[in-house]
């Protein structure tokens, strides 16, 4: 039996912390990098809800006499109906931004994932760390959104509604993690991200019962809502805000969102391993 040499001993010790906290170190780096566009994040996090809540929640709502939805206590104002969906779509918007170009930058343009890869941190941790940092940014966005919703009186029950930023986060991940798994496979930007933006995100935004209830859409198009994290998150948010009558039970929306995020997360981690350990 040979004794372990000092160099081997040092190596065994050297990996203890990275094995445990690697994902956090990656998240720390990504959050630091976000500071480079920190003002953009803050301004869009505040500006986006202001514009939408003023324009649609108050402006458009003034022309809508007929109630579009019922809460637990009867018909609700349009602004109450639309606000949870706007919050969720803001979260999905951030996820779309972070899980496309940032991923391409990491693998190809700035190549920083390869630098991380040479350190003790594993590809799975790189993926998880990236997700954590984006989750932090989404949560910042949804919390700001919720505070502004309160200011606009766009929440029925402020206490139950306080869970809405988390629902938004879940919506962002349910849409974003499958997108991350896809982005991580791309070696060239051939305009795929613009396609995602225009032909996936925008239709989901328009047909997910965001501005009017999904059951008022022709039956042939309602499936878009069923597969849309945006619809599930909007319904969950509405349930929290003013309660709902009928429709899918709240836990079914939660399950769908968790399943999408879970499957996306597993696939993304696998893709990172395959790509970085070729």
């Amino acid at each position: 039996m040979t004794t372990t040499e000092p160099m081997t001993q040092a190596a065994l010790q050297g990996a203890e912390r990275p094995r445990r906290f690697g994902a956090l170190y990656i998240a720390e780096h990504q959050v630091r990098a976000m500071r480079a566009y920190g003002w953009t994040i803050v301004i869009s996090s505040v500006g986006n809800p202001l514009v939408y809540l003023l324009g649609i929640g108050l402006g458009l709502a003034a022309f809508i006499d007929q109630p579009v939805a019922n809460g637990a206590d009867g018909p609700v104002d349009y602004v109450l109906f639309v606000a949870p969906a706007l919050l969720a779509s803001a979260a999905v918007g951030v996820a779309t931004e972070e899980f496309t170009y940032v991923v391409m930058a990491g693998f190809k343009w700035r190549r920083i994932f390869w630098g991380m890869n040479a350190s003790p941190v594993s590809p799975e941790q790189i993926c998880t760390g990236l997700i954590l940092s984006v989750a932090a940014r989404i949560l910042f966005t949804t919390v700001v959104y919720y505070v502004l919703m309160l200011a606009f009186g766009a929440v029925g029950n402020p206490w139950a509604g306080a869970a809405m930023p988390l629902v938004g986060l879940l919506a962002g991940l349910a849409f974003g993690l499958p997108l991350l798994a896809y982005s991580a496979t791309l070696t060239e930007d051939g305009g795929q991200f613009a396609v995602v933006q225009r032909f996936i995100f925008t239709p989901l935004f328009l047909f997910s019962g965001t501005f009017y209830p999904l059951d008022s859409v022709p039956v042939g198009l309602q499936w878009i809502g069923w597969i849309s994290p945006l619809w599930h998150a909007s319904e969950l948010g509405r349930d929290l805000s003013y309660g709902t009558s009928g429709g899918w039970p709240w836990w079914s929306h939660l399950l769908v969102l968790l399943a999408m995020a879970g499957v996306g997360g597993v696939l993304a981690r696998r893709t990172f391993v395959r790509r970085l350990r070729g």
Partner: protein
Amino acid sequence: MSSPVIVAQGLTKTFGTLNAVDGIDFEVPAGESFGLLGPNGAGKSTTMRMVGAVSSRSAGTLRVLGLDPDTHGPEIRSQLGVVPQDDNLDTELRVRDNLIVYGRYFGIPRRTCATRADELLAFAQLEDKARSKVDDLSGGMKRRLTIARALINEPRILMLDEPTTGLDPQARHVLWDRLFRLKERGTTLVLTTHYMDEAEQLCDRLVVVDHGRIMAEGSPSALIRQYSTREVVELRFGSDHNAGAAQRLEGAAQRVEVLPDRVLLYTDDGERLLEHVAEIGLHPTTSLVRRSSLEDVFLRMTGRSLIE
């Protein structure tokens, strides 16, 4: 005596049907400066990736710091400093922050990272660039920053893949000087290069690699002694006349090589041979006598030039 820091036996990497690395054996003792010399596509970078524990081997055995990269990747990587062929600095962070975030990956406390970052910026002669954006640095500065970053964990082995490719001569010399200082401090260096002057400057010992195989191994001077003559005469007769002139020079030198643009004559006495060339009535447009280099070793072993 301590064991070698790297031991490779029959190390192989296969991509589909291609053997990128084809059963190579080598050992690197602690403190040595070891080089892999070969043309592009010889399998140098693939070997580096396997040693760097980011690519699994297809066959053979590999031990780095006494550990198997397949099972102890993070442990091995915790002791390596890696300078990749293409810079992968974070251009969204400032120069000093690049070092700090990188140190964090190794679990080094923030305060220690900050202290080391300042020391390394001094070492890399980048103190006054600490707050600069990465994109504002020159190519040579970026390379030095990448080397500084690779040193943030005080690595036992520093691995450099083509460290000076793409740099101008002055920037290369500054970089060599820094690497030479690390060597003097006892850091183990493993580097790949296709520049023979770089290999001669920096390597105590090297292997010449071609098509994934090791063609020769030894110190630069030993390789030159073994595979080449003391001097080389380079003659240019114009591209249409080189081959004809070479034919007339058969037997005049120990070995004659005809390249598209010149004829190389291997001999121990260049001046003498040059006189002979004039005596037999050949008139090259240019002539040059120089010492043999690793380039000649490579040409001898593969029939090809290193830089094509």
